[in-house]
């Protein structure tokens, strides 16, 4: 099997699964119970937070464990908008966000917020000048995806952070679900107030994630209840999930430098080969994250190519998994100015640290063959 759909999800690392199992079995008590077992569980939760904070180089009380990327994004966006709506009702994001951001903004629009959706250039990147111009006295929030989930384009979030920090009432959220472990990003002293991370993109488990909430940032919670996670997210803590997330983060951090270099190497191989293939267009810009390669083969139905490769046990995907069930064209590619023929025929190849050069050569060979076979049928 050659699995090249790591941006949709990754295979859980066996060490992560083992941590989850161990934590579930040994520390099953509710951390809020006052007996000894509860105490142990609470201590483990605290240690998990300390470890996560250490790995991200932030403060322990800046970590909120969540159930993943969608929750993190929603908590950050709605949490800020609802908590601080008295300060202003203008919020800013981009046209190339993940649906969990885009639709949260659309939801807030229905509640009366004014939203600016920043356009992007042909490489999928927003313009700093346009962002600056969009900020008004009424702006309370900016949310920007760090690494685009379909294209791999990198937004200049460091620069945006510097701008945001000049406006005291403005909060800045970064959706770093695709960027974690792929494009290093410093959180402390960055002007970033909130940052979403998901476990299952890092060989962790579905239903795990965390939201970085900078000290002093207040949020209106999505869930009310028992006051867990400093009342930002009530509900009995998913302790084993949190432990497994920390394990996944640690493994990622340990391998990050080498892993990134390795994926860039593989990405270059793919780019060189595909740019020579007839009828194949490369959508991922030169300056992009190392793990994503988005291409279009206009005229061929992407689903068909995916199924043909699937028969060879090679797994890639069309656009984002969260929007791939809609048969429409990719909104992201459309926002970059690509025509319908190209934005409706996109394929995404996404790598992991463990992808091998051999796998990539096999995949490229099979892709070429599939394209040729399909073209022969179409003619």
């Amino acid at each position, binding site marked *: 099997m050659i699995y090249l759909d790591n941006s949709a999800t990754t295979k859980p690392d066996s060490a992560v699964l083992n941590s989850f199992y*161990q934590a579930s079995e040994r520390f099953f008590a509710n951390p809020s119970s006052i007996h*000894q077992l509860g105490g142990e569980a*609470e201590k483990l939760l605290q*240690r998990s937070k300390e470890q996560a904070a250490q790995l991200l180089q932030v403060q322990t009380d800046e970590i909120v464990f969540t159930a993943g990327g969608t929750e993190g994004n929603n908590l950050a966006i709605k949490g800020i908008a609802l908590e601080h709506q008295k300060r202003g009702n203008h919020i800013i994001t981009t046209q190339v966000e993940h649906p969990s951001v885009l639709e949260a903004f659309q939801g807030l629009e229905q509640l009366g917020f004014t939203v600016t959706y920043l356009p992007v250039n042909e490489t999928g990147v927003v313009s700093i000048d346009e962002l600056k111009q969009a900020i008004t006295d009424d702006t309370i929030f900016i949310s920007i995806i760090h690494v685009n989930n379909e294209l791999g384009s990198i937004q200049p979030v460091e620069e945006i952070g510097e701008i945001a920090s000049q406006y005291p009432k403005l909060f800045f959220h970064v959706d770093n679900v695709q960027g974690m472990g792929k494009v290093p990003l410093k959180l402390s002293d960055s002007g970033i107030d909130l940052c979403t991370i998901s476990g299952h993109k890092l060989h962790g488990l579905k239903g795990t994630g965390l939201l970085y909430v900078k000290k002093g940032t207040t949020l209106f919670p999505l869930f009310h209840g028992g006051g867990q996670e400093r009342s930002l997210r009530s509900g009995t803590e998913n302790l084993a999930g949190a*432990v497994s997330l920390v394990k996944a983060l640690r493994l990622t951090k340990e391998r990050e430098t080498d892993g990134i270099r390795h994926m860039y190497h593989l990405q270059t191989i793919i780019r060189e080969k595909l740019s020579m293939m007839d009828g194949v267009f490369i959508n991922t810009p030169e300056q992009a994250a190392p793990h994503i390669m988005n291409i279009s083969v206009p005229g061929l139905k992407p689903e068909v190519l995916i199924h043909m490769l699937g028969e060879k046990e090679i797994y890639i995907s069309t656009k984002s998994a969260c929007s791939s069930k809609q048969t429409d064209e990719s909104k992201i590619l459309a926002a970059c100015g690509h025509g319908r023929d190209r934005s409706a025929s996109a394929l995404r190849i996404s790598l992991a640290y463990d992808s091998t050069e051999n796998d990539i050569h096999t995949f490229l060979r099979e892709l070429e063959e599939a394209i040729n076979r399909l073209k022969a049928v179409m003619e």
Partner: protein
Amino acid sequence: MQYDHILIRYGEMALKGKNRKSFILQLQNNLRQQLQEFPNVTIKRTQGRMFVLLNGHDPEVIMDKCKNIFGIQSLSLAIKVRNEEEEIKAAALWALQNEQGARTFKVSVKRIDKNFPIRSQQMNQVLGAHLLSSTIGYTVDVHNPDMEIKVEIRKEATYITSSVIPGLGGLPVGSSGKTLLLLSGGIDSPVAGFLAMKRGVEVEAVHFHSPPFTSERAKQKVLDLAEKLTNYGNKVKVHIVPFTKVQQHIFREMPDNYAMTIMRRMMMRISERICKNESILSMTTGESLGQVASQTMESMNTINEVTNYPILRPLVAMDKDDIVKISRKIDTYDISIRPYEDCCTIFVPKSPKTRPSREKVNEFEAQTDFSGLIEEAVSGIEVVTLTGKAGAEEKFNDLF
């Protein structure tokens, strides 16, 4: 380019006479201990200062660690370059651009190596001109600059240092002997420990544990507090005294309004025993005058009667607000306010005596024999040694 070492300046230690060397060695040793997790770091002493050579490690993480070490007056990140004009220019420019928020600067060159062809004054101008012409928006301000770029041209190399960041001051922990800190779990005692450490004292802690009246969590809270103190020293040994029987006996046999005073005296007696066993020469408490019933002048007088060991009370003249401020700074506040019962809150008499007398208390204590119970408590002491994050909670380690 990256900062490759940290320059450390001593405070008060520099004023010491013949003992100076031992203070400096202690500081070097403490730095080594705190930076253990960074295998490539080396620490060098030179005339009047110390260098932490980063050898590729992240400067900021190590700076943060160094900021917690007593005995350091101030620190600066520094770059070492060869004695070449162009290299010095490039490094100075990098240092300026790397300083967030700085808009005005000043260059101060010290030419210690007189073989370097450009004189200090002239080099100031060369560098200033280079920085101004290579950047936009910066101006020179020689009186009150946002950032002073110090350039020291020495024989072996040139050092360029950025802004001076204040350290914690004080004396290196371990240079002033050992004390036994009475650690209750409240806000005050960890702050008292911190301040004792500031004067170079190594801290061991004693905690009185009364299961089942006080829970495992109350004990853990104290261990967590002690763990925080390891950020400022090397390790903290906690002596956990099984106190249930002593406490029950007091509250059964002694008059209600004197129970608290007598309990404190028992704690002092047991603590003195620990001091003797461990060759510790003093005790430290978080008492601040007038805060609660046990901290009136009369109470101190009565409680202090049972030991002639010096009792350090670093908080004695401090207001609660100031104590809370320090506890937030050293990150113990959030632990201290965890709502578990401790040995001082569990058997609180309705109206404790605020003006106890030595005569009365001795009269009461003479009515019953505590020596067997004290002996039993001392022999049942459990010792937990906290060494900082690395060794903590082995049962959890395999999970992460």
